[in-house]
């Protein structure tokens, strides 16, 4: 076997010897943070202003040096940029506050809005704005505060906003649960609520589940008729094994389905809920 080349031990020693100092210890970091804390507490503005003053003084002393010129230029550009960004932020805040507090679509006067912009925006207003539903994004922002609060507090019922596709999927989920609980009659009852399927996939799933439910309920002939309505690719369907297990055997073969117990009948009569939502009953 060929030996892979690597660094000699002497080379490794050389690299280790030439390596820089190890990073500072925890105690050193704590000491450093103690030194830096007052600087941060003084605010970023004072920190950012200090170098520019030093640079301008140094630059006036040795203006012939290109480095100082460059530093002076960059500090001036940064100062102007910072001032511009601050002004833009103040104007945006003024516009936002004015549009929130004004009634209706009244045009806002910039001179009047400049004063409240300096005051910090109250947090509850911002929260209410974020709670507004997505449709309100197209509406004008100039709403009064009570109107926003009222709109945010009144939530539409969930079923009304659901699409037909989601409804269909929810029903199929309930049917699947009922089939797993060996309650084919409840599954069939839930399938009848499906109505017109929203898509071909949901229609296919509904047919498969109906066939399985019918066969589980002992109505083998009906179940097999539903299987016949499935697409020709059903042989390769993921439900093929379940269909075979539920409806397999000769067509005339009768399956004896026991009468539902009292508990099963009660379960079939009440609306189905997923297992994780059911309360633990003794």
């Amino acid at each position, binding site marked *: 076997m060929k030996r892979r080349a690597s*660094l*000699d031990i*002497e080379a490794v020693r050389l*690299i280790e010897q*030439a390596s820089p100092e190890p990073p500072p210890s925890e105690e050193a970091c704590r000491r450093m943070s103690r030194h830096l804390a007052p600087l941060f507490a003084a605010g970023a503005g004072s920190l950012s202003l200090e170098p520019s003053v030093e640079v301008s003084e140094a630059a006036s002393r040795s203006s012939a040096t290109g480095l100082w010129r460059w530093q002076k230029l960059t500090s001036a550009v940064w100062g102007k940029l910072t001032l511009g960004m601050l002004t833009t932020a103040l104007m945006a805040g003024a516009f936002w506050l004015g549009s929130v507090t004004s009634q209706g679509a009244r045009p806002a006067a910039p001179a009047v809005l400049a004063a409240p912009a300096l005051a910090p925006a109250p947090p509850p207003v911002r929260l209410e704005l974020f709670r507004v539903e997505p449709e309100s994004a197209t509406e004008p922002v100039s709403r009064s505060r009570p109107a926003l609060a009222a709109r945010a507090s009144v939530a539409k019922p969930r079923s009304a906003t659901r699409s037909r596709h989601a409804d269909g999927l929810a029903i199929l989920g309930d049917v699947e649960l009922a089939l797993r609980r060996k309650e084919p009659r409840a599954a069939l009852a839930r399938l009848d609520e499906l109505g017109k399927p929203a898509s071909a996939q949901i229609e296919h799933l509904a047919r498969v589940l109906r066939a399985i439910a019918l066969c589980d309920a002992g109505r083998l002939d009906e179940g097999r008729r539903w299987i016949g309505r499935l697409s020709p690719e059903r042989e390769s369907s993921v439900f093929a094994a379940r269909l075979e297990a539920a409806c397999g055997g000769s067509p005339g073969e009768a399956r004896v389905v026991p009468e539902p117990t009292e508990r099963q009948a009660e379960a079939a009569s009440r609306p189905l809920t997923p297992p994780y939502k059911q309360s633990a009953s003794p």
Partner: protein
Amino acid sequence: MEQTTTFGLWEAEPIGPFDSTARDEARRLLYEILSGLKDRHREILVLVVFEHQTVSEAAHALGLSLKAAERRLERAYAKFNQALRRYRAEDERRLR
């Protein structure tokens, strides 16, 4: 004895004059050997040995296949070892 401080923030590791000189000498030798290597060998050595990248990361950074990067790294190791041995031999001959 008061140790040298760095910006007054943390104390440097206690290093004597001998250690400091040895480190400077090792760095000088390391830079000399690295600068004597070809660019393609130096760059992969720097990435893998000094930047602690894996060979596949270095291969990605250099736009090489993994196999090509491994071959180049082996070649770079061999060149580095060879240069160091040559330097030590010259050093011994000079001291004799």
